[in-house]
């Protein structure tokens, strides 16, 4: 479903990771590990199509569901309205399933602005369900979630991969997902290699 | 030596002075920045090559 080969990723004109290779099939979860500032987020943004890689190739489905550091919620809209909006943008399944998965029924008519940080995060994760996309690309999904809610997330993730989906997740805590493949990005760290060689050519 | 500019001397002279001043300023700025960047780059490359 996702195939990444010889990928180089840059941020702010500096190549952070190079030679990244991995493949992900339907039904698999890939957990990317690595220190802060290593380039995890930049790698995910490349996979989601928000950023162009410096080098290498990504084969991914046409649309993927991406979740970043910000949840992209509108405070003036209720929980249900937020989900319904994203469902219509993706032409995805109805919000009911997502409300079930993250036990958001009681909050459905509450404006998103009145939610706690953990509740907002749950709503952000519930958005992945209404996207209907097979590949989930998630950046630190469990930030500000307590143990119970991490369990909800794990259950939702399990259901997603069992129905033929796949997910790429970055995290710096152990999610304890038994089925997940682990990939430490530290060994792809770019050493002394910079982007923008064009200027050196121009100087010749 | 000065040409007789008649009653428009002020206009003509101020045009020439202002324009040459403006050109001088932009040339000066470009030359100054060019020198500064050239010097910084040379210093940086010297450190790198060493």
């Amino acid at each position, binding site marked *: 479903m996702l195939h990444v080969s010889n990928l180089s990723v840059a941020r702010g004109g500096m190549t952070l990771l190079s030679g990244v290779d991995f493949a992900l099939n339907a039904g698999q979860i890939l957990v990317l590990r690595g220190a802060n500032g290593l380039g995890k987020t930049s790698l995910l943004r490349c996979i989601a199509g*928000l950023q*162009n890689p410096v080098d290498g190739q990504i084969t991914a489905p046409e649309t993927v569901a991406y979740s970043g550091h*910000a949840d*992209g919620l509108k405070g*003036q809209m209720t929980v249900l309205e937020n989900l319904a909006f*994203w469902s219509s*943008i993706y032409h995805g399944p109805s919000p009911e399933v997502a409300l079930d998965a993250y036990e958001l029924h009681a909050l459905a008519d509450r404006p998103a602005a009145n939610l706690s940080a953990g509740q907002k995060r749950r709503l952000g994760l519930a958005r992945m369900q209404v996207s209907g996309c097979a590949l989930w690309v998630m950046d630190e999904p469990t930030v500000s979630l307590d143990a119970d809610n991490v369990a909800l997330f794990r259950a939702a993730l399990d259901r997603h991969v069992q129905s033929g989906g796949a997910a790429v997740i970055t995290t710096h805590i152990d999610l304890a997902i038994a089925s997940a493949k682990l990939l430490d990005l530290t060994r792809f760290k770019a050493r002394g290699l910079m982007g923008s060689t064009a200027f050196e050519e121009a100087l010749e | 030596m000065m040409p007789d500019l008649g009653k428009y001397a002020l206009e003509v002279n101020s045009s020439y002075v202002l324009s040459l001043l403006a050109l001088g300023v932009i040339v000066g700025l470009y030359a100054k920045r060019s020198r500064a960047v050239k010097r910084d780059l040379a210093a940086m490359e010297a450190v790198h090559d060493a």
Partner: protein
Amino acid sequence: MIQLFLRDVGLSVRSGGGFGLALIFFLIVVTLIPLALGPDQTALAVVAPGVLWLGALLACLLSLDRIFGLDFEDGTLDLLVTSPLPPEAVYIAKAAAHWLTTGLPLALAAPVLGVLLNLDFETGKILCLSLLLGTPALSLIGAFGASLTLGVKRGGLLLSLLVLPLYVPSLIFGAQAVRLAGQGLTYDEALVLLSAISLGAAAILPFASGAALRINLR
């Protein structure tokens, strides 16, 4: 795309959405003009077309940074660009929502405020028509400018600097049409050219703006 348009319109009408601020600004500008120029009725009627067009243009400028700014800050824009919706469609939906919540109310309010500046009813109709034809260009150009200055912190002033020169043709043709109408001359040509700018902007700017959005989120 229609969903995004409806959501943007809905958000701006709800509390804290800023709907109506442009209208209030427009009203205040029109109130201040006679205070600055003096109460002479004939003098006011002479400057009314230009003042009303300029007031509408400035009112339009006020809300531009909200078009993409709010969605950029809370991460929605990232999600919209990764969704099946192309950035060009995001731009069109947002510019259209901005027009519906800003340009259209301004166009409808202008003849009413024109009464305050001694603008006669017939000319007021042309003013309304010229604003209806011209404000789409203002929203489209403004949203383009907003997409360019997305990543710039406190980019409001820069946005005005970029957008105002682009507003020149619309302002000239729009105000000219009303002025000609006020003098009883034919104004068709100005209105046609005004609509041509709006149509042209709708044809070219989605691509420029879509590119700018992609570049900014990179």
